[in-house]
């Protein structure tokens, strides 16, 4: 904005009155005193005025094309400024004086968002996994024990079955830095899970469903892979990492937004969870194949899990595990030409478990 003094002709042919003039980017305002002493103000859009500089009087002349009224201002500075504003108005938006700022801001915005996406999807998870892999076996064991104790499962433990399952797994001779401890818990949930540090919990209801020793071997080697590959610890660190990242980014956001962001983050962590489950299936299968145990154990296990959990009717992207059919198909794919030898020791322990 610039301000000037001027002589304003209220109507064509009238006496000029002293006026104060403000020139903005789209309009100009002329304030003046009417002959009756009252204040008057008119606004002229810059698109409706013609501006010129009169060399003889050294004044800037502005004429309203519609009204035919005129305004004079001393010097040529006003003429130059009004013309500049008029030119700027006619320019398309991307050629305006501030369009460079727009372009730069847009570039910065996309760079910034790109950086955030990169951080959230790649760098934070990578860092979290790196940190998880530095956690010692001892610390993981303490963490796992704390989780197990907090769940209050020890009261329902079936010690006899636990002993046999531990014996079964020891007979499989799977080398590991972790000392694997399997606990059978009396419960009607058809499930099993691994906590960090080597503890595997198998619910009695799932154990009842299992009909063959390869199926039990499949279950244990799947859960063992979770332990051995630090899946739980990695998940904890990843969740923590993305929570901290989101917290830093959206710290003071309202509750609705934080619920949305939380759920989006949950969906992302489910993707990771499915990846880990697949890894546990594939590595578990390798354990079976190396010991010449029938890989069909996995298929049987999946069938039993499917019968027990109607929740698997959910679309895959909402599930923590891959779709059962998919699991069966990649297990079948990876176990072609498998050599199978019946292991009498495992068979006899399994029979004891089933008694």
């Amino acid at each position, binding site marked *: 904005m610039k301000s000037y003094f001027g002589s304003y002709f209220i109507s064509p042919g009238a006496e000029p009155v002293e006026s104060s003039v403000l020139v903005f980017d789209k309009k100009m305002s002329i304030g003046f*005193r009417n002959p009756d002493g009252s204040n008057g103000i008119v606004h002229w859009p810059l698109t409706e005025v013609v501006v010129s500089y009169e060399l003889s009087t050294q004044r800037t002349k502005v004429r309203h094309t519609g009204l035919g009224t005129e305004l004079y201002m001393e010097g040529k500075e006003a003429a130059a400024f009004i013309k500049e504003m008029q030119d700027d108005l006619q320019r398309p938006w991307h050629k305006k004086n501030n369009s460079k700022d727009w372009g730069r801001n847009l570039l910065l915005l996309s760079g910034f968002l790109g950086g955030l996406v990169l951080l959230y999807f790649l760098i934070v998870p990578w860092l979290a996994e790196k940190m998880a892999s530095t956690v010692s076996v001892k610390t993981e064991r303490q963490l796992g024990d704390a989780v197990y104790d907090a769940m209050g499962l020890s009261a329902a433990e079936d010690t006899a079955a636990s002993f046999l399952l531990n014996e079964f797994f020891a007979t499989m001779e799977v080398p590991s830095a972790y000392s694997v401890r399997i606990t059978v818990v009396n419960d009607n949930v058809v499930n099993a899970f691994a906590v960090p540090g080597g503890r595997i919990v198998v619910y009695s209801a799932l154990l009842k469903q299992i009909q063959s020793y390869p199926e039990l071997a499949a279950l244990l080697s799947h859960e063992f892979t979770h332990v051995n590959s630090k899946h739980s610890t990695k998940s904890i660190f990843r969740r923590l990492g993305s929570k901290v990242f989101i917290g830093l980014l959206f710290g003071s956001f309202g509750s609705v937004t934080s619920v949305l962001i939380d759920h989006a983050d949950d969906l992302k962590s489910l993707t990771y969870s499915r990846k880990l489950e697949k890894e546990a299936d594939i590595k578990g299968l390798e354990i079976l194949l190396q010991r010449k145990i029938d890989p069909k154990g996995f298929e049987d296990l999946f069938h039993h899990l499917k019968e027990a959990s109607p929740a698997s009717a959910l679309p895959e992207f909402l599930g923590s595990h891959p779709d059962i059919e998919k699991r069966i198909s990649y297990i079948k794919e990876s176990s072609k030409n498998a050599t199978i030898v019946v292991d009498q020791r495992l068979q006899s322990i399994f029979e004891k478990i089933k008694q």
Partner: protein
Amino acid sequence: MLITTTNVVDGRPVQEYLGVINAQSIIGANIFKDIFAGLRDVFGGRSKTYEKVLEQAKEDALRELAEKAQALGANGILGVDLDFETIGSGGSMLMVIATGTAVRL
């Protein structure tokens, strides 16, 4: 329209006092500017990004002040004073308050 920080204008006596007027402008230095200004904070040097924002806020406040003066029939504003404040969480926004006396010279 004459806008000045002085109380009198040489050679142009005040004919009429039209009252005290003020105008505010509150402007945020957007998130990118904050980041770049933050870098300046680390590396030193002039923070042009904040200077531009401050300049813009001052322009806006003075423009509003001039419009108010014009509406009162004034052709000058005397004793203009500019106050700068930071507001918003973490002082992320700038407020400029322009005050002056609308007069007819």
